[in-house]
């Protein structure tokens, strides 16, 4: 973990409530896709944990959905704004466990970490299939960026206005040869993905209201099969076999 200042370079509105933010700063503490940053915001006491979409040596890319006062404040920042950031938090996905043909399954804003994950898997010679679910086509975002990766890309919307009508689980069922999933999205989606019989293993990214974001306050702990885990420090990635719903 590192505490340092990042500068907002660029903000782009992707949908009615979703934004892409590009920040510059020292990303050396980030070691794996699926980690997150915890951002201090003007006027807010608690930092806001945001999943890392992608990063380079000196740039950090975040996808942010406005869900409350904190995220509203974050997307309102203008380029040039300096933000105090704790970076490199959480365990991140373990790509070495995913095999050659895993499926990356994301729902809504949960697709964010899957982009950086897919890029790094391709670099490692893995060939992931990507399944993204949205409520409607109007809510979909980052499709061009995902498509540009060249992976097999499957889309589901609840109303059928884009891709297949249904859920991201329907996309996964359409590729029965994929038996390992790396997933991020709302809890009901994670639960539905987790229950698919075709999956022999998988990693699931959880979210939680956090106090500190670095394992000290026990504000975000969840029960697992053999005790409990702190979503911020032991997670946010939990493994299929340990999850308790």
């Amino acid at each position, binding site marked *: 973990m590192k505490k340092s200042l990042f500068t907002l370079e660029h903000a782009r509105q992707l949908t009615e409530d979703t934004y892409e933010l590009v920040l510059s700063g020292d990303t050396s503490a980030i070691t794996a896709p699926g980690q997150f940053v915890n951002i201090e915001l003007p006027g807010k006491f608690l930092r806001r944990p945001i999943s890392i979409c992608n990063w380079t040596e000196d740039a950090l890319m975040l996808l942010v959905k406005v869900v409350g006062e904190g995220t509203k404040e974050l997307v309102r920042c203008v380029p040039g704004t300096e933000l105090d950031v704790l970076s490199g938090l959480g365990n991140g996905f373990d790509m070495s466990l995913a095999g050659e043909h895993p499926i990356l399954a994301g729902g809504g804003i949960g697709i964010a970490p899957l982009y950086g994950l897919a890029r790094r898997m391709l670099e490692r010679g893995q060939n992931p299939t990507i399944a993204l679910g949205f409520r409607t086509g109007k809510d979909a975002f980052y499709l061009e960026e995902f498509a540009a990766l060249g992976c097999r890309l499957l889309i589901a919307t609840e109303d059928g206005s884009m891709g297949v009508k249904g859920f991201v689980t329907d996309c996964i069922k359409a590729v029965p040869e994929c038996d390992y999933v790396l997933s991020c999205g709302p809890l009901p989606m994670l639960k539905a993905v987790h229950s698919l019989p075709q999956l022999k293993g998988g990693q699931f990214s959880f979210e939680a209201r956090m106090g500190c974001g670095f*394992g*000290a306050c026990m504000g*975000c702990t969840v029960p697992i099969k053999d005790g*409990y885990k702190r979503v911020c420090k032991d997670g946010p990635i939990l493994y299929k076999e340990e999850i308790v719903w």
Partner: protein
Amino acid sequence: MVNLAVNLAGVELKNPIIPASGTFGYGREYAELYDLNILGSFSWKGTTGEARLGNPQPRIAEMTGGMLNAVGLQNPGIDAVITNEVPNIAKIFQGPVIANVGGFSLEEYAENCRKLNDVEQVKILEVNISCPNVHAGGKNFGCDPKAAAEVTKAVKAATSKPVFMKLTPNVTDIAEIAKACEDAGADGVCLINTLLGMRIDLKSRKPVIANRTGGVSGPAVFPVALRMVWDVYEAVKIPIIGCGGVSSAEDAIEMMLAGAAAVEVGAANLKDPYACKTIVENLPGVCEKLGVTDISELTGGAHHG
């Protein structure tokens, strides 16, 4: 040179800054960030007899000037702490440790403290009497002077280490509780624990925190804590650890002027993991500006004249 050393019931601290219980775990996470030996002490996570999984999620909520939490005393239990955490603490911090101890009955408090008798590095017991008294229908021990005195006596009989009772602010007269603890033999008091509060989500019309209520902490509670430290200083002679909303070296000094012999820093650690380090580093400079050469002279300084 400013002398930052303070004395808590015979225990010498190199400076008055102590990370507060519940915001510092057992030191592990912060030891990855800085050398904990710059601290006066640290108060470990409230530890009970049995392991506790704590409350359901969500446990945390934002508020203007602070936060609410309802973690629910999640901890691995006293035996696991002695086996797994104490040896690690010895590696990451060589100063005096404050052991925060919880309990749900007089016997449990006494037993937990007794188990720490042989833990050399624990120099002070900080007894959290904000836990519900299972024998008295769930009322907090710390809300009743008689119950607070009973816990103090039970603990004092079980240990020879200095005992500091950690008081809840959710009472009409905290000075009365502090006095009852002093009369029962407490070596000191620590105040305040969090203030009971709640938030409601406008869309779901339900409390934000699953436990419904949570403890308020952060800069917003600082004046409340300060006033209570003031009141308790007027009522007792035993040393006071001031706690509540301290976020800067200036806050720490203000707390000492109100009557604190040492100062705990809580929620500030969660916002800025380096908060205690920064406060310790800033203390000498702030003291020098104020013409203070010995920080312990500040204790109760606002009461005189």
